[in-house]
């Protein structure tokens, strides 16, 4: 047992000792003639020992000194130096600078480039791997293997694996090449694809394997692109959902056309800006200003909505065209008031740190965090609205008034109060949509106008009076928009969607989720 342990210890000590041996053996040669220097630099570079890095760097910078006995010193600033072997402080007096020529310089450049792969700074390592990836020679294989064994950062590991496969493809052994092709196919990135395509000319014997690998990468890439398009569509869809949910309540449930809806969204975005300004002086509160804005924006927009309903809209029930014109006028005034109060220029609303950056999902699909949060937020608001209509006293009264106003009144429901609350509720949802939009769009007085036509389309497409229809309509329109975009461009995609909706309501004039039965008559 003791013998075994001792043996293990010796082995464990011997492994790094061998590397050190190469380092120690080559070190003195750096002080010898130019041919020796170049050969030593090459060997040190290939060995991948991080301790060689400062010595070679010093030699390259002309800071390597040699004592009369041949031992080497690294000079940090004139008058201060350390031993090249041990790193202990030493007196540079009497030592002379080691000279190099162009041949040595070239060897040093290659060696340093490779050695960066084992540097301490992860960014330097990444740059070095990318450099190796560009050169792609079989001689890089050993150092890449050494580096891979040491590497712990996943992002850099993936790059090293890619470089390793690319270098192995440049090797002579066909079996190694086949393994490399398989590795590149598994990697599935654009870079792997172009490496494979470039290697075709040099490897006519392996053309079938390469073609298969490229095809497999193409499938992966197509899937990834489809997933990313889907994500973008969902994210646009959830923006539309947020903007249209409030309309689904005011237009769908109450039958009130509110052309000022976009302005309520805009008020929500400006509330977000104001809450952020208020939180600016309280550092611990600042990251939470966005969640705080959600109820604030709801209340502001709901209050304006309630005032508008009681003061104006109430007098125009049963006259939808007049309501449309009147609310447009109110929207115009709100927009101008905001323009005068805040100026016409864009206001900046910052994203909290937990919403920034991108997330890589399995399969290499990249998604931006703030878009992901907006999808989550959109669904959450939808569920909240559904729950409020289904389970609360207010929701019950609202449904009762929608179904039969007079009987509801007979039952003691104050229909006027329910009208005001419903309109305020729909407006408040628009305000919450403004919080989300402030994260992805410019907060300016005409923020809402860009969304109003689209939101109406969502409601008409999904079916007036149906929240499920709004959900399906929003996501369908979002995804169709994003799918068409690469072929037709953003503007024509939008035009195509509008034309598509006009044709769609030929077939289904009441929308995707038409109300059936008695409710459909009104």
């Amino acid at each position, binding site marked *: 047992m003791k013998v075994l342990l001792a043996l293990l210890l010796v082995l464990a000590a011997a492994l790094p000792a061998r590397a050190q041996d190469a380092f120690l053996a080559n070190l003195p040669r750096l002080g010898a003639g130019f041919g020796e220097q170049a050969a030593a630099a090459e060997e040190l570079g290939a060995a991948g020992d991080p301790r060689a890095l400062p010595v070679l760097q010093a030699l390259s910078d002309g800071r390597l000194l040699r004592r009369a006995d041949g031992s080497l010193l690294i000079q940090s600033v004139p008058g201060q130096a350390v031993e090249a072997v041990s790193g202990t402080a030493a007196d540079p007096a009497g030592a002379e600078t080691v000279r190099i020529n162009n041949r040595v310089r070239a060897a040093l450049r290659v060696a340093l480039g490779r050695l960066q792969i084992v540097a301490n700074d992860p960014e330097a390592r990444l740059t070095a791997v990318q450099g190796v990836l560009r050169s792609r020679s079989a001689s890089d294989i050993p150092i890449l293997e050494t580096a891979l064994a040491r590497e712990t950062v996943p992002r850099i590991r993936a790059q090293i694996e890619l470089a390793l496969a690319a270098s192995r493809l440049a090797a002579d052994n066909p079996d190694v090449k086949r393994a490399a092709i398989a590795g590149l196919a598994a990697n599935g990135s654009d870079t792997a694809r172009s490496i494979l395509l470039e290697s075709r000319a040099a490897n006519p014997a392996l053309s079938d394997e390469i073609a298969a690998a490229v095809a497999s990468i193409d499938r992966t890439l197509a899937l990834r692109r489809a997933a990313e398009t889907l994500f973008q569509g969902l994210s646009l869809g959830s923006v539309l959902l947020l903007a249209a949910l409030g309309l689904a309540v005011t237009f769908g449930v109450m039958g009130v*056309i509110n052309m000022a809806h976009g302005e309520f969204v805009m008020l929500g975005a400006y509330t977000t800006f104001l809450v952020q300004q208020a939180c600016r002086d309280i550092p611990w509160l600042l990251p939470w200003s966005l969640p705080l804005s959600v109820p604030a924006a709801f209340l502001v927009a709901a209050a304006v909505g309630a005032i508008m309903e009681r003061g*104006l809209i109430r*007098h*125009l029930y049963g*006259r*939808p*065209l*007049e*309501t*449309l*014109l*009147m609310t*447009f*006028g*109110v*929207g*115009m*005034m709100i*927009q*101008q*008031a905001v*323009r*005068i109060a805040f100026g016409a220029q864009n206001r900046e609303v910052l994203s909290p740190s937990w919403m920034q950056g991108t997330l890589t999902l399995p399969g290499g699909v990249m998604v931006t965090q703030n878009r992901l949060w907006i999808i989550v937020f959109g669904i959450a608001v939808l569920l909240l609205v559904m729950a409020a209509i289904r389970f609360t006293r207010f929701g019950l009264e609202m449904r009762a008034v929608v179904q039969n106003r007079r009987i509801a009144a007979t039952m003691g429901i104050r229909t006027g109060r329910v009208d005001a609350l419903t309109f305020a509720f729909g407006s408040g949802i628009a305000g919450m949509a403004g919080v989300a939009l402030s994260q992805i769009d410019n907060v300016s007085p005409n923020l809402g106008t860009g969304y109003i*036509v689209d939101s*109406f*389309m969502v409601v*008409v497409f999904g079916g007036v009076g149906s929240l499920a229809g709004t959900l399906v309509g929003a996501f369908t329109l979002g995804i169709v928009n994003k799918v068409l975009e690469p072929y037709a*461009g953003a*503007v*024509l995609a*939008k*035009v195509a969607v*509008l*034309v598509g*909706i*006009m*044709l769609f*309501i*030929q077939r289904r*004039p009441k929308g995707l989720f038409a109300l059936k039965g008695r409710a459909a008559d009104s």
Partner: protein
Amino acid sequence: MAPRRRPYTTAALGAALLLLALVPVLNGLPDTHALHVSDFIVSIVGKWICYAILALAIDIAWGYAGILSLGHGAFFALGGYAMGMHLMRRIGDRGVYGHPVLPDFMVFLGYPELPWYWLGFDNFPFAMAMALLVPGALAGLVGWLAFRSRITGVYFSIITQAMTYALMLAFFRNDMGFGGNNGFTDFKDLLGVPLNTRAARAGLFYAALVSLALCLLICAYVVKSKLGRVLVAVRDAESRVRFLGYNVTSYKLFVFVLSAMISGLAGALYVPLVGIINPGEFSPGNSIEAVIWVAVGGRGTLGGALLGAFSVNAVKTWLTSFAPDFWPFVLGGLFVAVTLFLPKGLVGLLRRRGG
């Protein structure tokens, strides 16, 4: 609903048009004369006349047939673009780049030759016909699709708003071949008369005024005919008219297409007067602003549409000259005040006063 005949209304309208006809004459007086009006007044009043034609078009659709289109600005702009294309072709080799055929923006964007849909626009009668036919065809298509599946009321309004919005987005694109963002400008002459001269302004002014009078006569004839009675009936009780055996779709389609063609004519007259057309004319806000002229004047009466177009635009010109920030409040306030307090507009107010 049909108003009783009021002979003095027709007399007042005729007198107003004759009064307008005096404007270019007064412009021709020497500058020092007490009754002289400036060139600015001539072109601004000319603009209002074009707006009045547009208001008339909206009124026969909305006021008489109950079709509220929020996309009439699109028909107006399409008529304007047709005229703009003619004016661009007439520039010939006098453009900045001096190309004999291609307009400047096409040279700039590297068009090898004239797109096919620009052919023929160097011919004035063809361009004028297009200014009427293109809006008419678009209205025919949209109207047929909508009325056939019985899309009415606010749904139709939203669809037409989406239509003008989509057209605005499309015309903003450079590769549409309509000058993108900048549209058309730098026109030189029309029918051989250099624009921006006193004679051209007076000519355009009278062309607009005569068109207004003609449109007024056509609309008056339509609304007073049996057809007009049916349209009013459709407005008031669409289902009942359908059950009585009338083909409601054709009636609505007819008035909508007529209305779009009149709007196209207004646009074609407007462009040489102001000297520019760009995709901003398609913006939904423009269409809805035109609707409010009719609402302010009093829908369902032809005189009301004219009164509204002139009065709202006069206030706008006056107010924006010294307090442009305040204008949206006034316009928005008009939307609210008219719908809440003056459902019959200024004409209704005058009638009530008149007893």
